[in-house]
């Protein structure tokens, strides 16, 4: 660690113009953001209540990103490669979950026994995505263990196409819509925040899953095995850890988290089709990097910050700067925020954790 700082310091001295330039970017960014914020907040365009609403939307969207991001982070932490097909793992669970929910709705159970039905659908979602993730690992990634990192990246892109068009082939290209949950209609008031019930469920469930996962990785035997494999596969194998099994568990747990995300997606957004996984996948990957890839708490922090950036950012900053059609630019805000965060902190908000030597 100390050595790293000295190299950094040495570099700073030598690269002065670049550092000056980076500082310029930082200062300009801060000034622009402050001007935008002040203008937006003082214009009175949105009421205080509406600003609070935007924050809630950001947190709930971010929670879904965070859950998907966990899968990226776990796989990245252990295998050091980007599993591009993870968005499709998520999509598969929402799609299959739709059929389960639809069947329950047709039988009337969805409205009569909402809690039981939701539980059944949740299990279906988690099973589906776990199965898809484990199959992926077996077919597309395991034979390539030990190859350069970009090779499994390409098979994961291939797998992503394969899954998308498999679902398009099996279930058609039209959109499908999850049935509404009666008990989750309406909203709750909480500390002056108005939270739509589905969003409250999304946020709470995401937090709960995150806590569970944290305990699993930090406190259980399997979790310790995962961390050991992340650190050094060969040494872990020598220590008697079954590396293959551990990696399957990693994919399975990541898949299950994507399954929960798929379930929550079905509640909060309802509409699903074969392309649903693509963009959330990319956003979740962004969230994982934003928080510090390989770091579980980082995925949560990164997801929620990304959600807030893209939901609140356009209204708060761009509107104040008088940009036309500012909502269209939400991804510009999100990615610019990412660039700025990484300029300030080159390894994410919380830094990398699962394997520390890489920072």
């Amino acid at each position, binding site marked *: 660690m100390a050595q790293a700082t000295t190299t950094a310091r040495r570099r700073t001295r030598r690269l002065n113009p670049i550092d000056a330039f980076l500082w310029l970017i930082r200062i300009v960014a801060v000034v622009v953001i402050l001007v935008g914020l002040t203008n937006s907040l003082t214009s009175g*365009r*949105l*009421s205080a*209540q*509406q600003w609070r*609403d*935007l924050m809630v*939307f950001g947190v709930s*969207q971010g929670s879904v990103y965070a859950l998907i991001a966990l899968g990226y982070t776990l796989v990245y932490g252990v295998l050091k490669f980007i599993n591009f097909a993870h968005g499709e793992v998520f999509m598969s669970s929402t799609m299959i979950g739709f059929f389960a929910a639809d069947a329950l709705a047709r039988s009337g159970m969805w409205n009569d026994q909402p809690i039981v039905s939701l539980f059944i659908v949740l299990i279906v979602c988690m099973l589906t995505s776990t199965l898809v993730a484990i199959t992926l690992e077996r077919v597309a990634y395991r034979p390539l263990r030990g190859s350069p990192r970009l090779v499994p990246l390409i098979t994961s892109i291939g797998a992503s196409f394969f899954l998308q*068009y498999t679902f*398009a082939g099996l279930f*058609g*290209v*039209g*959109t*499908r*819509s999850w049935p*509404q949950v009666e008990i989750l209609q309406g*909203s709750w008031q909480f500390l002056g925040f*108005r939270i*739509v019930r589905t969003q409250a469920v999304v946020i709470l469930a995401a937090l709960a899953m995150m806590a569970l996962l944290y305990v699993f990785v930090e406190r259980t035997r399997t979790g310790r095995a995962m961390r050991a494999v992340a650190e050094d596969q060969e040494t872990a194998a020598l220590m008697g850890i079954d590396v293959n099994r551990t990696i399957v568990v990693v994919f399975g747990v990541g898949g299950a988290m994507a399954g929960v995300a798929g379930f929550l997606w079905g509640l909060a*957004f*309802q*509409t699903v*089709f*074969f*392309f*649903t996984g*693509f*963009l*959330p996948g990319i956003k979740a990957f962004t969230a994982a990097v934003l928080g510090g890839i390989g770091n579980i708490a980082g995925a949560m922090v990164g997801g929620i910050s990304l959600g807030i950036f893209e*939901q*609140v950012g*356009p*209204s708060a900053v761009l*509107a104040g700067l008088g940009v*036309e*059609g*500012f*909502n*269209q630019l*939400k*991804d510009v805000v999100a990615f610019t925020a990412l660039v700025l965060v990484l300029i300030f902190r080159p390894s994410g908000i919380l830094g990398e954790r699962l394997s520390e030597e890489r920072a």
Partner: protein
Amino acid sequence: MRTRKRRAGALTAVVLSFMLVAAACGDDAAEPEFGDLGGVVVPPQGAVRIAALQAISGAVANLGADQVRAIQIAIDDFGPIEGHQVFLSIEDDLCLSAGGNTGASRIIADTQIIGVVGTSCSGAGVPASELISQAGRVMISGSNTSPSLTSTGNLEGNPVRADNWSEGYFRTAHNDEYQGDGAGQFLADFLGVASAAFIHDGDPYTEGLVNQARTAFESRGGTTAFFGAVGKDDTDMRPILTEVAAAGPEVLFFPIFQPAGDFIAKQAPEIAGFENIQLMGADGLLSQTFLSLPETEGMYFSGPAGRSSPEYDAMVAKYQELYNEPPVQAFHAHAYDAATLLMTKIAEVAEAQDDGTLHVDLRALRDALYATSGFQGLTGTITCNEFGDCAEPRISVYQNLDPSAGIGGTVGNVVWP
């Protein structure tokens, strides 16, 4: 060893020169009896070939898949032409200009293909219409609405050829100029609202439509409370809806597509202040899956007039029977009309010969299409003008009163004019 190599070299030279000669000799197959665009000879027992150039993969696959199915139904309904079956080749335009370009190149490479139904997207239509037109073939689109493909200045009464007009290009979809104007009139004159909000999704179609509607609305004294855009693949619309609610319009006009349209309709009721804002979409949302959402009850939709007919209902029923789901997008009727129009005109100009072949003169086909007048289609009466715009320039507004009645129910409820 040396000799063998030399022999191989000589052989290569012979083959290469043969290829050169073959490449150099002109195509002497020009048929003397055809007009300046040439013609297609359908062999005895051979099929009359037409092509679909539609977006069948990617995020908008439902737009193209819907139209391909409609074209298949149209072919089935139309039956054989002079005893020759009609065979459809399916190409993907990817909803991109590059996709339209390669798709069209591949279609014109097949000299047996007489005409094309496509493209799905205006962006793909720009290069495709030029290529197909240059190759002498014709192309009829059921969902390109960009004025740049046909004519501009229609509302001022002196239409002129648009930048990307091509002689062999027709469409049964509307020129955006009409629908935008109709929607603006409806908002200002019929609903009598003073302020409206507009949202598009960055698609050339919806962007053009919204701008046109806004102009028409403002010229009738309305004010634009909010004008914004979402992304086609956005899912959380709550922030922009919050902005709309804060601006406090009486109507929100969002003539976009699914799935983004679904998210707006579903999330609007969650937003405080949206209780008194009337929702309105356009023909891009006139699909079964959208109309059956409970949140769309009471919503208005602008679209071409004359959509409701027993023929249309029969077509939807056939669609459901063949493909196990109701129409997944909104332009199937336009594509059905485009295909039927194409086949009707081919049948009109085709001349059966004694040897069992069928001759189709491409100049005659093009002229026949320009002469189309009063053709009864599922989307109304079709009359082609000199720019290739064939849809009836009459806009209706429908209201969804009962989500369970589906698309037939909604297009049966004409509220305007």
